């Protein structure tokens, strides 16, 4: 998708413009159009100083308070893209609910997918405190003008993918999300605390699936290895473009929306995940991955950023399918929403009549 194809391309308040920085759940979603820079008057200068001081003191910014337009826009974009990611994120895993191998796995997977739906709801709620409507955000998702995490544009081909997603994708998401619990914007930080509390089970159930397969028959081991092969690089890319490419990290760090750079978080993810793969006796699909005594970190191979950008721009394996699934879910739910509205109207009318006749 190019900039000019998007209906909202000229408005920086909208979420739709193509954002090369767009990474994933939360990272790298902070780029701003140059046309969005504000022209400060004396009044806003004083307000800005007050705002900056508050952020500096690590105090939270709350919904009704004055905030710079660019801060508001950055948050609306980041929080709504995060919300969309949770919602679209239900699809790859939802794909396996009916085929989960045991009743226990099925119950767990349903609970996880419900949690992701809940995460989307917490985040839409947080975004709405910034003055956007949920319907507008949902409409942008359905229209294909909003972004969500690229990771969910990959298919879930085998049951082992459900293990790999919980272990790697939720693992990467947790690493992204924990620092946001300290975000300067109160409602986002609080939503994130709630989300992080729920994420840990997601990662552990995924690792448990991987462990079961890795200790299983040769065919099960091969399935686990295949899933790791396919999910490793997309998971590593979830942290967004490298710091060298990410021009707006500095501003988001100053605003304390972001606390660590993309590369810092990515390194941390690799450092904790590589030994877990060793434990599973599975091989990370990176021949250059090795422990570096000098830096006390893992060294890894080059990331194929052309793939990342291809998927962000809509050319991943499942981009169309995901949007199609969201649209048809929305359409199929229409009669339920209409019936609920009609029933509520009828109930209110009856209450009014009773009141009048009394």
């Amino acid at each position, binding site marked *: 998708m190019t900039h000019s194809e998007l209906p909202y391309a000229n408005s920086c308040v909208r979420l739709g413009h193509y954002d090369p920085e767009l990474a994933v759940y939360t990272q790298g979603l902070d780029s701003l159009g140059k046309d969005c820079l504000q022209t400060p008057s004396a009044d806003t200068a004083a307000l800005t100083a007050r705002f900056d001081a508050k952020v500096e003191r690590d105090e939270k910014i709350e919904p009704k308070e004055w905030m710079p337009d660019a801060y508001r826009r950055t948050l609306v974009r980041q929080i709504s893209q995060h919300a969309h990611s949770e919602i679209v994120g239900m699809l790859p895993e939802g794909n396996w609910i009916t085929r989960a191998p045991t009743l226990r796995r099925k119950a767990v997977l349903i609970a996880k997918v419900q949690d992701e739906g809940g995460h989307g709801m*917490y985040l839409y*709620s947080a975004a709405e405190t910034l003055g956007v409507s949920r319907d507008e955000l949902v409409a942008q998702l359905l229209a294909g003008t909003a972004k969500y995490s690229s990771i969910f544009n990959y298919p879930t081909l085998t049951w082992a993918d459900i293990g790999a997603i919980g272990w790697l994708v939720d693992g990467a998401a947790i690493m992204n999300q924990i620092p946001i619990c300290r975000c300067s914007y109160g409602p986002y930080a609080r939503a994130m605390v709630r989300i992080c509390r729920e994420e840990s089970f997601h990662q552990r159930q995924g690792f448990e699936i991987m462990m079961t397969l890795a200790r299983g028959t040769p065919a099960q081991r091969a399935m686990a290895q295949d899933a790791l092969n396919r999910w490793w690089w997309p998971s590593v890319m979830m942290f967004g473009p490298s710091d060298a490419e990410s021009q707006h990290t500095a501003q988001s760090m100053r605003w304390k929306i972001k606390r660590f750079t993309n590369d810092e978080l990515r390194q941390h993810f690799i450092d904790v995940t590589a030994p877990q793969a060793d434990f599973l006796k599975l091989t990370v699909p990176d021949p250059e991955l090795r422990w570096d005594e000098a830096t006390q970190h893992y060294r890894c191979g080059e990331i194929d950023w052309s793939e990342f950008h291809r998927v962000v721009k809509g050319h991943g394996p499942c981009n169309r399918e995901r949007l199609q699934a969201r649209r048809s879910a929305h359409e199929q739910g229409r009669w339920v929403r209409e019936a*609920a509205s009609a029933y509520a109207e009828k*109930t209110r009318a009856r209450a009014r009549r009773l009141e009048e006749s009394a």
Partner: protein
Amino acid sequence: MTSPDWPLFEVFIRSRSGLEHKHVGSLHAVDARMALEHARDVYTRRLEGVSIWVARSSDIAASDPLDADAFFEPARDKVYRHPTFYAIPEEVKNL
């Protein structure tokens, strides 16, 4: 997902008996009853509550953050409302 005409409700949850209700977030619902059911599904999937309140967001009046300094000014110079304002000798016990 909601319909455009569904109002926003703020959700408050009492996590255990004996504690106060605490604001946890908001959601859209067609009426208060649906808001309660949605609040249960969205905010208490792990038994986080024993009681839920919902209130239409539009019914909530809030103090203005920009006026906060002036609004809370009356209490600012009344330090004598705190026990630490009073110097009591060490040797006096149980006070």
